């Protein structure tokens, strides 16, 4: 049985039903069930792809280049499992954080309204969009998936109607609309030039064209447009200006999910674009590598400049995107396995840190300058300590392993640029450590002024502990995880399995006679 459509269908239906359910408890139960089911399906897909098989589902049984294909290889399996895991934790966290007292300085009504007006439903639709972007093998379908994801994220960002939400939400929507406009025109022009929207088919035709006519500036232009769009979504340095101000404004659960996964969808699309569709565009890859180094440094410096929990962590997110892309765009796919390992690590670290921030905001408001919470909340301090070590990349944590692998891959490739990028990665590690210590000094260290302890809901504490536990587990299970990353990276750098799995049915005789765009291809264009 082919499960590939389920990670899209489960959140779609549960989201629709969630809009109708009148009671908060039932909404929570259904959302949890859907997230659990999604996790089960995702793990089963991951299990299947680990055997080396690329799973394909042709929607409505239309053969590959004409219909929409859903494809799952190693990378997709990892991303699906991560999104389902983070999704489940977010659902539980939101169920707890939205029914209790809001953070200090916030009106009581806001969270009540957020819950009542479909927070959980929007979260499910967001999950649907995220899963669909990971699964789809069709460029225009990827655009649609992005839109599903973005429209749900607009909803989650705006729900609650506070002034900062309105202000930052407007910018967020406008930036994303412009990026989507570039995406859709790029997809249209790829169809016009290459004659197909199926990613595997694009890969085949681009490779054929490059083999017979050499590099083509038009293809580079299209790759550049896609890179621009995905880099905007991934918040790479000069294009990520929208992130630090917009991610801190929604409900804490939404912030955590956004930071952990939404930017990673952009990174995922960049990986697909430059390993599958346009693997030969070395100039753009080099450009993105430089931008990755800049993102690392600027993100870390931004962290130091902030004094509010979630603003600081939003910059940490930009920095982590820099590390990810550094691995992705190191020459000859050398850093790819390190990047995938770092990806698993960073999703959980950023998520855990945002949950810790949510708890800290409940204790003392948005800023972390209120000293002396070490004695009152020792468990929170301990959790932050572990997560901060992982963020900065110090030895017992996964952060160290991931960054060591990234930097050594970069040095192994060598050359002036790669050495500079490796140097930037090391310096950024120190800056991240400084920024983490700064939070520690501001929030946990010092004399305690707290008159009474704020009671924190068990659900929030439990979710944070679970997420932290996963982070620790990641460090323990480093060996198998690194093999998993290696396997997925290997599959990505030799994309033949992916292409063969998607296009296999084209050779077979077809029933019916779908309209063929075959002689509209690259060959004809160049004559």
């Amino acid at each position: 049985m082919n499960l590939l459509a389920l990670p899209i269908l489960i959140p779609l239906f549960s989201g629709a039903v969630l809009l109708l359910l009148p009671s908060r408890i039932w909404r929570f139960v259904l959302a949890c069930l859907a997230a659990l089911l999604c996790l089960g399906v995702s793990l089963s897909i991951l299990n299947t792809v680990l055997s080396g098989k690329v799973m394909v589902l042709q929607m409505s049984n239309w053969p590959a280049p004409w219909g929409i294909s859903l494809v799952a290889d190693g990378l997709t399996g990892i991303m699906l499992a991560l999104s389902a895991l983070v999704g489940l934790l977010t659902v539980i966290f939101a169920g707890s954080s939205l029914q209790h007292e809001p953070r200090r300085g916030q009106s009581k009504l806001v969270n009540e309204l957020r819950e009542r007006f479909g927070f959980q439903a929007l979260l499910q639709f967001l999950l649907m969009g995220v899963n669909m972007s990971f699964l789809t093998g069709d460029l225009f379908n990827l655009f649609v998936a992005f839109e599903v994801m973005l429209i749900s994220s607009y909803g989650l960002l705006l729900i609650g109607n506070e002034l900062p939400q309105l202000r930052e939400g407007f910018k967020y929507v406008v930036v994303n609309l412009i990026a989507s406009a570039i995406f859709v025109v790029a997809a249209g022009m790829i169809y016009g030039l290459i004659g197909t929207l199926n990613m595997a088919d694009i890969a085949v035709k681009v490779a054929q064209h490059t083999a017979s006519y050499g590099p083509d500036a038009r293809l580079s232009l299209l790759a550049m447009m896609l890179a621009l769009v995905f880099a905007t979504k991934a918040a790479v340095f000069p294009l990520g200006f929208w992130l630090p101000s917009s991610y801190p404004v929604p409900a804490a659960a939404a912030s955590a999910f956004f930071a952990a996964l939404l930017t990673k969808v952009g990174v995922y699309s960049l990986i697909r674009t430059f390993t599958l569709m346009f693997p030969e565009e070395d100039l753009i890859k080099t450009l993105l590598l430089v931008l990755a180094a800049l993102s690392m440094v600027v993100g870390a410096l931004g962290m130091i400049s902030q004094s509010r929990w979630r603003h600081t962590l939003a910059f940490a997110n930009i920095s982590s995107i820099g590390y990810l892309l550094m691995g992705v765009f190191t020459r000859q796919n050398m850093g790819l396995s390190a990047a995938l390992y770092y990806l698993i690590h960073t999703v959980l670290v950023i998520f855990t840190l945002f949950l810790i921030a949510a708890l800290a905001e409940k204790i003392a408001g948005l800023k972390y300058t209120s000293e002396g919470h070490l004695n009152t909340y020792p468990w929170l301090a301990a959790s932050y300590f572990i997560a901060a070590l992982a963020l900065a990349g110090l030895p017992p944590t996964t952060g160290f392993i991931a960054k060591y692998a990234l930097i050594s891959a970069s040095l192994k490739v060598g050359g002036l640029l790669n050495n500079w990028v490796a140097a930037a990665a090391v310096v950024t590690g120190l800056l991240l450590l400084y920024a983490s210590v700064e939070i520690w000094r501001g929030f946990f260290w010092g004399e305690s002024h707290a008159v009474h302890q704020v009671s924190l809901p068990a659900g929030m504490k439990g979710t944070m502990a679970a997420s932290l536990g996963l982070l620790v587990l990641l460090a323990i299970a480093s060996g198998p995880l690194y093999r998993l990353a290696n396997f997925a990276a290997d599959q990505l750098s030799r994309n033949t399995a992916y292409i063969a799995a998607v296009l296999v049915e084209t050779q077979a005789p077809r029933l019916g006679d779908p309209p063929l765009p075959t002689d509209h291809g690259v060959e004809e264009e160049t004559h």
Partner: protein
Amino acid sequence: MELLLPLLAALLVGAGVFMVLSRALIRVILGLSLISYGINIAILLAGAGTGLAAPPLLDVEGPYVDPLPQALILTAIVIGFGTTALLLVLSLRAYQATGTDHVQEMTEKPDPVEVLGSYADPERPSISPEFGPEEKLSDTKEPS
């Protein structure tokens, strides 16, 4: 036609970008609409630049025009419609909350939730009697 449509697309996108760069919310929204119109024309051109082929209908003789770009445009129009509606409501809400539709003035205004503990939205519905706005007001003012 060969030259006219690309020029029209460029004109629309150019005008749209110019308007998006202005500081009034409503102009930004109109600019975004213009950009999406320009882009739809560009996609149409990418798929069917010649403009001579017949529509893909059963009772019309070929050669047919490729219908896929039109399907792409249709999807883009539907999505654009939804997001424009959202943006309009959003800018209206922002205007009601801040009294201005100028981006700069909006940023300079302090956040009333942080300063006063009251709501950004004057028309916020009170959904349950115990959490109504009145109760919130009595929270901030000391009862005398």
